[in-house]
């Protein structure tokens, strides 16, 4: 069972979870995803919610449903590359927002990444 953030729809959280697993390489191109019911039992949510997750992921061309066979991570490497880029942009955006809130400007952000990046 998964603990969900209370203020965001569950289907979005699960989409992000699967996208994260794909970007990290825990789910590979062309790999089969669990069946709707298996996944629902596994994470502890309604079957209708998982159906929506798979539908929306398919709409975004991240997964493909093959009739009678199940749902698979796309094997389109271009799409996977843009997915990886999108995730990167999202994380950087989040980082920049936090830094801005604290009052750091862009130069400071770039410098701190360079310096700390070398250290770590």
């Amino acid at each position, binding site marked *: 069972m998964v603990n969900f953030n*209370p203020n965001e729809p569950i289907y979005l959280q699960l989409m992000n979870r699967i996208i994260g697993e794909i970007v990290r390489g825990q789910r590979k191109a062309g790999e089969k995803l669990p069946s709707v019911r298996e996944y629902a039992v596994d994470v502890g949510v*309604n079957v209708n919610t998982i159906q929506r997750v798979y539908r929306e992921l398919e709409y975004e061309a991240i997964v493909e449903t093959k009739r009678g066979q199940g749902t698979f991570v796309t094997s389109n490497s271009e799409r996977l590359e843009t997915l990886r880029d999108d995730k990167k942009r999202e994380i950087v955006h989040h980082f920049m927002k936090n830094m801005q809130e604290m009052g750091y400007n862009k130069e400071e952000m770039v410098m701190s990444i360079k310096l700390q990046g070398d250290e770590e």
Partner: protein
Amino acid sequence: MIEVNNVSKRFLITKSLDNCSIKLETGKIIGIIGENGSGKTTLLKLLSGLLRPSSGDVLIDSEKVTRRISSKLAYLTDADYYFPYFTIEELIRYYESQFADFDTEKALQIIDFMKLKLEQKIKYLSKGNRNRLKIAVTLSRNAPYILLDEPFSGLDPLVRKAILKGMIQFVDLSTQTVLITTHEIKEVEPILDEVVLLRDGRVLVKQSVEEIREAYGLDIVSWMEKVYEKGDI
């Protein structure tokens, strides 16, 4: 579809439901929530034909509800007394003889899923296992409507989790609809499609759980508190 039209239910002088109207679509898991005495159990009993409305009418699939509705509706009561003299296997045989839609193979699967044993005598089961069993036989009916009255109350977290997982695994939402009354909202929330919020015998609002998160950025408990505070959304 379930339709409740202008239904009131009085017990002597107390009004348990007060001019309620609501329509519920099939293929969903719907939570009936609200504080104690808000009318949740009365609503379920009216839907199952165990009670009759003082006024208004209750329709299931366009048919007026009578006691005969039990042929297409599986009802899990919150009563604790439950066939103490049977073994689990005898209870299954009994259910088989009573309900045409009872699916024995499914029952055996759920019994196994719940880690129960057929030869166990019901009176010697722990409270948790007795409730696992009640859920097991209720979900073993391929009834179009399943009504669960407080399936989690007084049970430990492991049993609650087993019941939740059993519901996800064994309910077929392409042919079945589930109504649950509960106070354990946080735990049930991930499996609910919709909630119906009651107060003082009235339906305050019916809404999709994902819409509530999306529109208000709130989980159901916080949303419910807000609605109760304002008396509206």
